[in-house]
């Protein structure tokens, strides 16, 4: 397994087919799936999940960015978080 630096920010890409919800560094990403509410923090293990409908929050060093998703997919790979929303 690759080493993950817990001190690094997350690199987040949150997109829909025609929309860019957020692209940039973040401290955390919060969403929910069939298992329940979850948070992705720097250093999180690689992760692949189908999102439940609901609000997604991207915590940044400034104010948090929130948006709603009817459905979606989240993947985490080496501190890079990709959110594919409303597909």
């Amino acid at each position, binding site marked *: 397994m690759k080493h993950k630096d817990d001190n690094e920010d997350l690199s987040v890409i949150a*997109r829909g087919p*025609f929309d*860019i919800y957020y692209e940039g560094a973040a401290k955390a990403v919060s969403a929910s799936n069939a298992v329940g509410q979850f948070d992705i923090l720097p250093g999180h293990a690689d992760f*692949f999940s*189908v999102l439940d409908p609901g609000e997604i929050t991207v915590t940044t060093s400034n104010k948090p960015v929130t948006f709603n998703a009817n459905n979606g997919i989240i*993947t985490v790979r080496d501190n890079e978080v990709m959110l*594919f929303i409303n597909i």
Partner: protein
Amino acid sequence: MRRPNAIQKESEQIATVQDLTGVFESTASTQVAKVKDKAQLAQEFFELLWKRYSSLRIDPGERIGERDNVEESNKKVFVMISAEAGLSGDIDQRLIEQMLDNYDGKTTDIVVLGTHGAQQLQQKGIPYTHHFTVPETDQYIDVSPVISAVSGYASITVYYEVYVSLGVQEIQTIDLAARIKDMGEDVDTDDIMTSEDTIFEPSLEVIATQMERTMMALALSQTILESTLAQAASRFNAMAGAKKRAEELHDLLNMEFHHAKRSESDRRMREIMISLKKKKQRARMA
């Protein structure tokens, strides 16, 4: 020669056609620009998701091939994506011709997207099993009813229109199931995600199943979007051509009008001259 007022009346009608085609041309041009931006964004999104889907360590080809509801007859289906309305030039005609080159009614069913294509098939007496309307929108279209209609077939070939440039639009085909299958075959080994190093929630099986359907729907949505762009460009070309013809006709009518006017004034002048001549002759005689 026709009378000038008749020519003038026709010229006014052509001027109206010229104005109308100008408006349609301008609308089509705006539509091209709008859809082109959307198509570019959607393509980037699709490529990102495609990359992630490809990294799933399950051979998507096998999964697609093993679909439970594939009919035993192994019948094929052609999905034809045409325009919803007319005025889009000859592109739908070319699409149908290319599709019919490979069509065998005994082994192949047709599913049509777009009313214009459905009408053209009806005129040719070619049957289709389903017809779906394609809203004139630059938003993503819910293709789940189409996916449900075609999911029982062994082979799904999509015939659609592609924008190459404003002047050139081409017809292309993709085998939807094969396209999804191909995704898993050229993955960088560093990108592969397995359950050994990745947490899958709720499970890899559930995610893979959902992703297959999602990717198939997205691939189909992409082809609809590309077709919409090509149709807008084709409509622009058709309207630009019609406007040019209307302008040429208007110029010809203008010339004919002036000739007729001049001819009429020449005739009147001749009549006046003759009448004057006769008057002079009569005065001399008297």
